[in-house]
């Protein structure tokens, strides 16, 4: 499915070197490590927002190392929900897929009736659910999650964690989560990789 071979990236220091990952269909992997160890940069390299110094990324047998981000078919959920303030909830979801069933999508993330809600009226948890629904509407081959629950309180974070895992498993969507919290990683993922 997704295969990362010998990935390496440096800025002023080496962020990661010879990083390897094999992700199978429906598999969820968590990558943990302390702040500043390059977890986010790794995800940004995998989805094409940053260029790699070395290594190869293969998705469904195709080398996508030099493919631009918008053509890779890899979705990403950012640390804080990125929702466009000039659009309402429905407008944001339609960026993922123009022909989607908005009502069904919102029901799936337990936000029925939110179609015309303005973005600034959403709570952090609601925003992250919309961002997740939108990312999945784009039908990505792999979903990357960059500590999407870290800014939420523990109770809400736990609830979202299990909901999102169930959601991904239901769709058989492979995912990579990066987090500094080992407990979160264990609860969410099928396997955990630690980087320093």
């Amino acid at each position: 499915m997704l295969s990362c071979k010998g990935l390496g990236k440096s800025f002023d220091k080496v962020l990661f070197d010879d990083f390897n990952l094999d992700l199978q269909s429906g598999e969820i992997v968590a990558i943990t490590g302390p702040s500043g160890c390059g977890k986010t940069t790794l995800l940004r390299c995998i989805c094409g927002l940053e260029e790699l110094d070395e290594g190869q990324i293969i998705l469904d047998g195709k080398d996508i190392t030099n493919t631009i981000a918008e053509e890779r078919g890899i979705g990403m959920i950012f640390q804080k929900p990125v929702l466009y303030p000039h659009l309402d909830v429905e407008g944001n979801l339609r960026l993922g897929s123009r022909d989607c069933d908005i009502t069904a999508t919102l029901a799936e993330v337990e936000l029925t009736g939110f179609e015309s809600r303005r973005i600034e009226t959403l709570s952090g948890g609601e925003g992250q659910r919309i961002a997740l629904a939108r990312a999945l509407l784009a039908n990505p081959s792999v979903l990357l999650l960059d500590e999407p629950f870290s800014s939420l309180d523990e109770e809400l974070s736990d609830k979202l964690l299990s909901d999102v895992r169930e959601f991904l498993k239901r769709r058989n969507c492979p995912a990579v989560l990066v987090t500094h919290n080992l407990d979160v990683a264990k609860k969410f993922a099928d396997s955990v990789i630690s980087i320093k």
Partner: protein
Amino acid sequence: MNSRHLGILAVCAYTILVIVPLWLAIDRLIWISGFDIVNWIQSLERNFVSQGAFEFTLIQATISTIATLVIGIPIAWQLGRYKWPHDYLIRSILTMPFVMPSIVAAMGFLHLISESGLDIRSNKDTWFATLIIAHAWFNLSLVIRFCEPVLSTLDPKMEEQMLLLPAGRTKIGRIRNLWIPLLTPSIAAAACMTFVFSFTSFALVKWITLGENTLESMMASIGSSAGINGYMISKNEIILGSSLIQFTILLLSLWIMSVLQHKRQSRLPKASESIVKMKNKSGWFIVVPAILFAITPLITLIISSFRVRESGPGSTTYSWSTAGWEYAFTSTSSLPSAWDALFNSVGYALTALAIALPLGWMLAQFICDLEKVRPRLARFFDLFTMLPFAVSSVMIGLGVMLGMIRIDAEFFYSLWLTPAIAHVMITTPFVVRIILPALRSIDPVYDECARTLGISKVKRFFKIKVPMLRGSILIATIFTLAMSMGEFGASWVVTRNSDWTTLPIMIDSLRSIPYNNSLTAPAANAVASVLMLIALILFISTEKFRPRRDGGMF
């Protein structure tokens, strides 16, 4: 073609449209007078026409800047710190003067001090004070625009924390340790821009002062004799000397302003939009006079357009009628009608918009992208786009005129669109200055997120970037139209010997007609009132779309 290529294309287009005419003009002046910088500077004191112009320009610009800050800071403080009923309306009234064409302001103040008004113009001290007050009136909105957002959206916790610290227990302590450090970049940036606009002021100097010249008005008056081989060589030297001094001083001011604006943007805390402000009853003693100050010259202008002088034997009386308006909208043997001037003005404004908006936007995007990878180079281009501010509108007019002579005078003088070149040169830097802060304020994560959703570059542009910049694009559009419609200095130089009369040129022409025609003054005021109403409508439309705290200047 990627955004970098588009940016380079924009820089090339900007260089051809803006820099080349100026270069051609300077090249021609040097060709006639020779390359001798010391001689150019000395020619200013050697010739009667330019003696004292630099000193007067510097003195009036400095005093105008101080006066603008003295009047503007308390108003910005009141607006920013306290809650006012209809604050949108108050803010609009107080910031409106900046979009008023300078000739409209000149007519308004002229009528306050001339025979038909308070009749105080004959005294040199009063007209100098009037000029300073008029500059303060004109630039007041810069101080408000720069300082008020810092005050109005500052997180209250910053002040509360300061109250609990030894350094902030007294009012003076809080001013010294919180407000001064916080406001200094904004005040200094506003001071720089006020200085630049006062230094290059033309219409106000031309009509309010009695024979005193700034570098700008002096260049305008002798510009028509420049650029002719073997004819009045000293005037070429004076223009070169004046331009060099003006360029150096203004460029320095703009460089300081650019550095401060950058500093100011990084310093502005992203405070919450829902700050609860207190009312301040005693603040009305500042706000009410400020409102009266902002509207008085404009109301005077409208009233004066209906007031017709009737001279009888040994006495002068005034009557009320619409004769001035009728005179303005009827063509005479020496002047076109206001309809023709309006047609030209609208045509030039739309042409300027069609070129300046995309060009300015592309330049702003280029600078914004460059800031992430080559900040020093970005700062250079930032300054490069402000060059027209540093050469003043009269010099731009001279650039277009002398450039035309150099390339093909007959062709350009027969082309209706020629004055629009000057308008593009003047409005493009404003577009850059409006769009650039808006581009800087868009978090790059919005674009990155759209990329991970598989949205193409074109779709991202139309579905995300354009809607997110909508407010700033509209402001830039309306500002370009307003600036072009009210443009006076460059048009005055370029269109003086042609039929391309615009509304500001018509006002000037009407006022220049000998005083024995009693309808010319009310007719000039009628045309100025039309221009004022257009600017007002455009301004009100702008305010509706202005993003809060966009960090922009205008």
